[in-house]
């Protein structure tokens, strides 16, 4: 119970049936402990994103067991999974998906609206603090579509952190950024794990980026090799 394991998979397999039955994930088993900074690398098409969608509870069509915070995700309803996603998982995409209808601040606060644990003022303050620690507090009241790619990615990171999740998952967070912005994001992640003891799971193609994380999970053709 009082172990430090945040996320655990037990022989997770997944098939795609279209156009032919192919096994994209084969018997994936690993654990991630609190405070770890883990990267997943592998050839394009080896199933990294697919694995991340399974781990994030958005994709439920797999066999095997997924345990998050000592709680099995088996037989959970869509509503319960949404709740867990909201409480315990932060997600950052490659294409820094923000809601263009909202300001930067509202974008960051959004997951907090769902969890509804804090008052509006506290949530607002937390979001501002996050933006400040990411060095973009000036942008708080800009609309999301007015930002540059690097700025958007930082807003997305702030959003993934607003509910103080157990683990933050990122799918190629630096795939669209130049080396300067990539470095910036890396520094942020490093600080998150080292200073704030956050747990990070990052899919990346950038080997230089991966080499500097604490642990690399290498994938090939749906399997974990190291």
């Amino acid at each position, binding site marked *: 119970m009082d172990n430090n394991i945040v996320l655990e998979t037990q022989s997770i397999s997944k098939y795609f049936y279209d156009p032919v039955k192919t096994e994209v994930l084969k018997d994936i088993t690993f654990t991630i402990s609190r405070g770890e900074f883990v990267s997943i690398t592998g050839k394009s098409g080896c199933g990294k994103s697919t694995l991340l969608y399974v781990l994030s509870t958005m994709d439920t069509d797999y066999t095997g067991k997924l345990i998050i915070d000592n709680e099995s995700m088996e037989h959970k309803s*869509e509503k319960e999974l949404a709740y867990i996603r*909201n*409480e315990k998982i932060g997600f950052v*995409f490659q294409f820094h*998906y923000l*809601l263009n209808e*909202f300001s930067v601040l509202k974008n960051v606060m959004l997951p907090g609206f*769902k*969890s509804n644990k804090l008052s509006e003022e506290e949530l607002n303050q937390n979001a501002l603090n996050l933006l400040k620690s990411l060095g973009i507090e000036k942008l708080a009241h800009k609309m999301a579509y007015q930002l540059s790619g690097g700025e958007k990615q930082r807003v997305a990171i702030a959003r993934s952190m607003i*509910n103080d999740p157990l683990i933050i998952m990122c799918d190629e967070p630096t795939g669209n950024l130049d080396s300067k912005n990539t470095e910036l994001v890396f520094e942020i992640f490093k600080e998150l794990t080292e200073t704030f003891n956050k747990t990070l799971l990052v899919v990346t193609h950038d080997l230089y980026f991966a080499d500097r994380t604490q642990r690399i999970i290498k994938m090939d053709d749906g399997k974990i090799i190291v």
Partner: protein
Amino acid sequence: MRIKHITEISKALILARWKQTLVAAVGITFSVGLFITLLGFMEGLNQLLDGLVLNRTPHIRLYNDISPSAIQPIDMAPEFNKTYNFVNSVKPANARKEIYNAEAIIKKLNSDQRVLGVAPKVTAQVFYNLGNIELNGVINGVDVTQEAKLFSFRDYIVGGNYFDLKNTSNSIILGKGAAEKMLAKKGDIIKITTATGEQFSLKVVGFFQSGIAEIDKVQSYASITTTQKLMGKSSSYISDIQIKLNDMSQAPVIAREYEQLFNLDAEDIQTANAQFETGSSVRSIISYAVGITLLIVSGFGIYNILNMMIYEKMDTIAILKAAGFAGSDVKKIFITISLSIGILGALAGAILGFALSSLIDAIPFNTASLPTIKTYPIDYGLQYYSIAVLFAVATTYFAGWLPARKASKIDPVIIIRGK
């Protein structure tokens, strides 16, 4: 999840597509407005047309019908009571049209809780004399006050005051048609001959116009006392008792009851005027059908716009779901969008409906047969407003329901992968 945040997200989505949502809302506004106008106008006309007859008709009329007695003398003879008796060519005896003991009956009726009011009446067959020519006529002897109270008598009096009938002795209010034939003006003295051949002079104090030409050619009004005098009857002579009830629909039942109780003939308004009810209800059904069709059509507008919005906002929905919003939250957001379009559109529609109704209400509508009507009739009944608004909101709810369900079912993985 707080309602405040659902509405905040909905509002942002609406504002991002405010032109389309405005179009959808305007669609609702128009259909609600037209629904209210159409029904108010139709119901106004219905009430006008029904009023032409129903206002003037008692809910129950008590009278003595002239018919042959069901029991003939031979049936009463003890030696023939075991036989079957045939009597041919039975004629009514010299039956009295008079209602016996009318005063006591009226008193009893007035104490009945279900009765709104009672007006006695005496009808006299007369001839209007025009030189050599005699015109058929009927003089209704009425209790002026009761007649005005129960049967909107004053609405049908043109050129004169109904009250003069009571204050001036030997006065008459002539039917408009009859008056035109006689070239009678107010203040003129006209001559009539009663059925028994006696001649009388009566002073014209006004004219009566019911809107139905056939009636106006024949019917005139005088006070009960004047009419009793014409007929040479005592002041207790009453030929009809007209009853207005609190609830018109009870008339047939109560009529049967009074028939038994007073041993008189009783005619209820439903039997007397069956065709008017049917006409009104058919007109109402047609207008409701048209109005509701309008509302449903505008519901399709909302359905379209919401569907479009969902296709455009796939990314947004996917992010919300990835951030931990459940399908039900997404559904609530889109239902909120749909309902806000519906509620805003419907409220604006209620205002539009009132404006259009007032506009029609101001259009002059003069017709010789309807002296009291100056503009087109409109019924401002609150029920049309509430039906229209409720129905519009319900329509938008259902129109939004399908797209909202679709949105809630969107798989974020497919959207995110598709980028």
